[in-house]
């Protein structure tokens, strides 16, 4: 997971999986983040199986870079059987829903259950993303509702719009920071253990 390069730069790698109903904007968010906000398509092109993007994120005030391996999964029904394989060894999760689509919000529990079942963990390191906030007229899921839902699962909640490119980077930066702090904690525990062993 960790690499120390010659310039004393620590690179941590983390696998991050995006889940959520089809057409909520997972691919749009991922592509936008990966291209630094230059790629967005109005046309819908269903994701087949998965797309992988590698994006380095610098942690401020440190020499650490988190390399996010972002797995943008196709969540159409016919790929359901393959999804657990992608989830298995993932460390970070982002659950995406469309704020104009109530079904996509309701279906979040299904996705979370799936992750819980596959990883066997109750607490999932992840974020909740409400997308398409530019369509304020069509909005059907309130901020308060979504926040309460996120809190009940221990997620941080983010609102984004791929179309207007608002706050796309925030959830990914949050995930990178989470990964970094987890790593630090584990390192500390490891050092403690090794000291007690001696």
């Amino acid at each position, binding site marked *: 997971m960790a690499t120390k390069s010659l310039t004393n730069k620590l690179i941590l790698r983390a696998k991050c999986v995006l889940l959520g109903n089809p057409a909520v904007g997972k691919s749009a968010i991922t592509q936008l983040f990966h291209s630094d906000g230059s790629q967005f398509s*109005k046309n*819908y092109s269903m994701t087949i*199986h998965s797309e992988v993007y590698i994006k380095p994120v610098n942690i401020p005030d440190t020499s650490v870079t988190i390399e996010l391996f972002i797995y943008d999964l196709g969540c159409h029904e016919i790929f359901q059987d393959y999804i657990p394989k992608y989830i298995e060894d993932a460390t970070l999760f982002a659950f995406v829903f469309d704020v104009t689509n109530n079904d996509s919000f309701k279906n979040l529990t299904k996705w979370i259950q799936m992750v819980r079942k596959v990883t066997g963990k109750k607490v999932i390191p992840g974020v909740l993303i409400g997308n398409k906030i530019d369509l304020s007229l069509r909005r059907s899921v309130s901020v308060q509702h979504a926040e309460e839902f996120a809190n009940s699962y221990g997620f941080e909640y983010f609102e984004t719009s791929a179309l207007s*490119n608002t706050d796309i980077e925030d959830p990914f930066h949050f995930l990178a920071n989470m990964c970094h702090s987890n790593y630090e904690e584990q390192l500390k525990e490891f050092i403690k253990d090794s000291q007690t062993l001696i």
Partner: protein
Amino acid sequence: MYGKAPSGSFANRPSSRAGLGSSWGNIRGTTGVPPQTGRLGARPTTKMGLGFQVMDRPMTQQGLGGIKGSNQVRGRMIQDRTFFMSELRHKVSLVTNEINKLNNEINVIEKENENYDAFEKKVDQSANELRELQGQLGDLNTLVDKLNVDTDLEDIERLYNQIKIKNQRENNILNDIFTQRQQKENLIRDMEKKIEEERKQAEEQLKKLDADKLNEYYSFKEQNAQYIAEIQQKDQMINELNEKEKTLRENLEKNQLKLKAYENFMKINELKEKKEALEEDISSIESKNGPEERERLLQKVKEDNVEISGMERKITDLEEQISKCKERLSQLDMDIDPHQGEKNSKYEELLKRDKDMQAFIDSFDSKKNELVEKTNQIQTQIAESLEKLSSLSKRDIPSYTGASGLKELKEDLQFKQKEMKNSENTADALIIERNQRLQDLEKVNQLESKLNFELTSLKNKIEKLNEDMEKIKNIDELKKSTEEQKKKNKADRQGLREFRDSLKQEVAGLSTIYDGKKAQLQENETFAQLGAFEQKLRYQESNNFHLKEYIQTKTLESNYQAISQEILQSLEECNGQILKLMSIPPSC
């Protein structure tokens, strides 16, 4: 472990997304650009055709036109008598508020001025304290200087010894003075004894005289004793008055106006003294030359009196001036409010001056009266005694010489006593100085202990540094150990390189296997079919999504309910307002 740039080997792989539609997903690598995130607005916004824009809608402006005229009518209506009355009342209340505020400020300033005296006393105290502290600071500074210049303890001790010797010398001088004083006292005692003997001799001589002359002598003696007592009383009075004068003069020196008044007062006194002298002259001349001279002198006295009255007039002038100043002060008091900040200090000064003047003026009359009375009394007494003396001198009786001798002795005694006092004072001062020196010595001792402590700590430091030096001296060992480390590191590097190479080989093998599998898959027919189906599905889903979007937007667009309600509401409001306007009859 590879330490590779994020672009990595993934980027080199053939991306299968565009061409064949592989079902195993596409993997893209970044181009190694540092993750500068937050470039907003780089992307062209695609805002066309989304929703509808209310601003572009045609507005109906005609419905709102009628409001303008009525607004003007209302404006005129409001400004009637009551409106101006209320304005006036408002302004009046503002003015009264302002007046109250100013009154409060005046009260505050008066209080502050009352506190001023107390503060002045405090200032004196603080000044005294400050002086003491400055003295201490000087001592400490000299000490610090000595510490800074690194004067040895020996130097300080030498200095101390010098001071000690000096002290001793002064002690000796003091002792000498003491002995001198004792000698003087002995002398005085001798003198007194002599006086006693002389008195006895005189008494013996008196006893030889006959009874008539003895009686006369006794009466003269009594008179003489009386005169002496009177003289003593007057001396005391003079002393008291001198002290009073001193204090008054000190008070006067603080103030110029007062000084002037004092000068005038002095002139008066001088003139009075002159008058006294003249009167004495008169009395003496009267006894000798008779009434002519006396009249002339009396005339002179009268002239002097006229002059005195002129002086008094001047004094009243000065008092008038003072009262004028007071008036000006009160004026300034009133003026002070606007320029409070600037003139406050001036005002305080003036007020203080005024107070002083007031006190002086208040006490001036009574003091003057007292002094005038006293001088009058003394004048009359002197006149009486002079008369008596002149009558006595007429009888040609030899004056008593014993009194003058006693007087001389007394003066001598007084002088000696003064000297003794001085020597006592010097002794006190010397004792104080000695105490200070002792304190200094104590301080020096304390400093010595401190310096010793510092010395030990520095020695410890030196030891530590020496140990470190020992370590550094073993350069060979250090070099050896670093060499070993280097070797070990090199070996590690070699091992790791080998490991990397083997891993590379493995990866290459796996990729060839992967490529083979891929080729196999490509050849598989069902895979191709699946790919085609997936493409179809993608197309269908896309259609599906866009249709849904279209439906959603259209239904939203056709949803006129909200807008119609809004418009109805505003229409109702407009109508209500129009009705209201119509119901108000025009005022003029």
